[in-house]
């Protein structure tokens, strides 16, 4: 069965997504002529610039996360595929204010290699870069190289605030790495998304089952369970996340409840409520809560929970003002 989608020629899809972001940006974001790069129209002079970007199809990550306190440029990859070095390099030059460029990427082999090549090319051009990878999916062992999920949002939010305050490249990279080290995420998938170019489902799952730990591209999870009510599912996920650190009574965390694409805000509220209850039972304080679509895979249903164990510095930076391309209120 072909999934109905409001798209045009798939060859133009990445460009058309970026053009839509520009239209929604109140003049604060522009698009480069020859490559699919979004860049802020008024980057503060002398700031360390932040370049993000990965495969497209996971909106609002990253196309929607550009603005003051967030990214300065977004290198847009093709559908579910890392951006090429050419795109990353163009974003680098467009964003660079002379104090260096911080690359924030999710930990996938394709992203790692393409950012590595881009960093070499940027160095040839005299631009200093640092790269911080976010990989926080607890369904994989650390030594396997955990993949990145919605946690990249926190890496960007906090290092974005640090750069807005004038941090130099070393300091910005250091705080980004601290965030990445203190992130844990876990997802639960109910039904698949599809690839916009091929129409193919990204995975298959029985009608009465859920897969815990599935990746955003349909990568295998840790367990297939019978569909459960929200509370036991949430408890299972919070316990796995808390156990991975392990969290102790008195710890403080930020919580992100992320819709994988087709799960209702209604459900996210129910899950958020239980996540708060369970964390309170563990003696953990939730200092900040974010709910909604942050990293999606088309019409994939399910949600992910991300915890960030914060210290005083991270908590401060998390609270700093920031706005994305379309939300324009002081």
């Amino acid at each position, binding site marked *: 069965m072909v999934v109905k989608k409001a798209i045009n020629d798939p060859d133009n899809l990445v460009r058309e997504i970026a053009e839509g972001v520009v239209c929604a940006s109140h003049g604060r974001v522009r698009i480069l002529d020859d490559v699919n790069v979004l860049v802020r129209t008024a980057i503060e002079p002398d700031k360390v610039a932040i370049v993000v970007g990965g495969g497209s199809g996971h909106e609002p990550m990253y196309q929607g996360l550009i603005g003051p306190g967030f990214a300065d440029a977004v290198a847009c990859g093709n559908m579910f595929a890392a951006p090429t070095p*050419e795109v990353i390099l163009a974003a680098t030059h467009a964003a660079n204010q002379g104090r260096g460029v911080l690359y924030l990427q999710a930990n996938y082999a394709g992203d790692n290699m393409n950012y590595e090549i881009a960093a070499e090319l940027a160095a040839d051009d005299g631009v200093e870069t640092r790269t911080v990878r976010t990989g926080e999916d607890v369904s994989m062992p650390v030594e396997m190289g955990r993949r990145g999920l919605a946690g990249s949002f926190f890496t960007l939010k906090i290092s974005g605030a640090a750069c807005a305050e004038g941090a130099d490249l070393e300091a910005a990279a250091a705080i980004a790495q601290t965030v990445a080290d203190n992130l844990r995420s876990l997802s639960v998938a109910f039904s698949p998304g599809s690839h916009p170019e091929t129409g193919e489902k990204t995975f298959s799952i029985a009608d009465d089952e859920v897969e815990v730990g599935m990746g955003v591209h349909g*990568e295998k999870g840790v367990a297939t369970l019978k569909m459960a009510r929200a509370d036991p599912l949430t408890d299972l996920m919070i316990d796995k996340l808390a156990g991975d650190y392990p969290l102790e009574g008195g710890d403080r965390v930020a919580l992100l409840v992320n819709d994988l694409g087709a799960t209702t805000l209604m459900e996210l509220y129910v899950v958020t409520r239980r996540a708060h209850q369970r964390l309170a039972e563990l003696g953990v304080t939730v200092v900040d809560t974010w709910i909604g679509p942050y990293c999606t895979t088309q019409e994939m249903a399910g949600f992910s929970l991300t915890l960030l164990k914060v210290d005083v510095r991270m908590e401060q930076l998390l609270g700093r003002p920031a706005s994305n391309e379309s939300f324009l209120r002081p």
Partner: protein
Amino acid sequence: MESVEAKFKAAMIAAAGAVVQAKDLLTRADQAIGDGDHGIGMARGFRAFSEAIEKIDEPDVVACFTAGGRALMMTSGGASGAIFGTFFTAAGKGLPAGIRPSTPALAAGFAAGLQAVKDRGKAKAGDKTMIDAAEPATAALVAAGDLPLGEALAAAAAAARAGAEATRGMVATTGKAKALGARSLGHPDPGALTFTIYCERLASVMA
């Protein structure tokens, strides 16, 4: 009579065309163990690869590898774009300018490309990647010594095919397929298939 340089240029373009034609086969192979976009990315990259080579007026081995590899790296995207782009650009960089197409030249180019891929991707033989096709193909070229290029490439293509088939028995440890663990058994690695298809057409045109 057509120069060996012109023939090599035509073979590189034909080999890229063979990968583009295999887009659906490669997509199906990647759906089995990856995220299903390998064919799309490789078709895009190898189309740019052949367009860049077509523009070269004075074809030589180094120009073909370097221009093709750079175009592929800049357009393909994903892990496969970085890997195949690295293979071809490093193959070009590893050879002296103006070197004529010959078995020792191709052997040296492939060896340089293979080493760069290992450095870039941190993978090795047996990890169920394109290295499992590229390493035996390179070894076959080296072992061919001074044999005519057509014969040497035929041996390399056969070695690549055997290597790609052998990836069916391997468990992926890198890329998105690593999350499948033992579920990746029985399926060939899509990157190894791409490398094999490229070698087979290169060999048939140079025969």
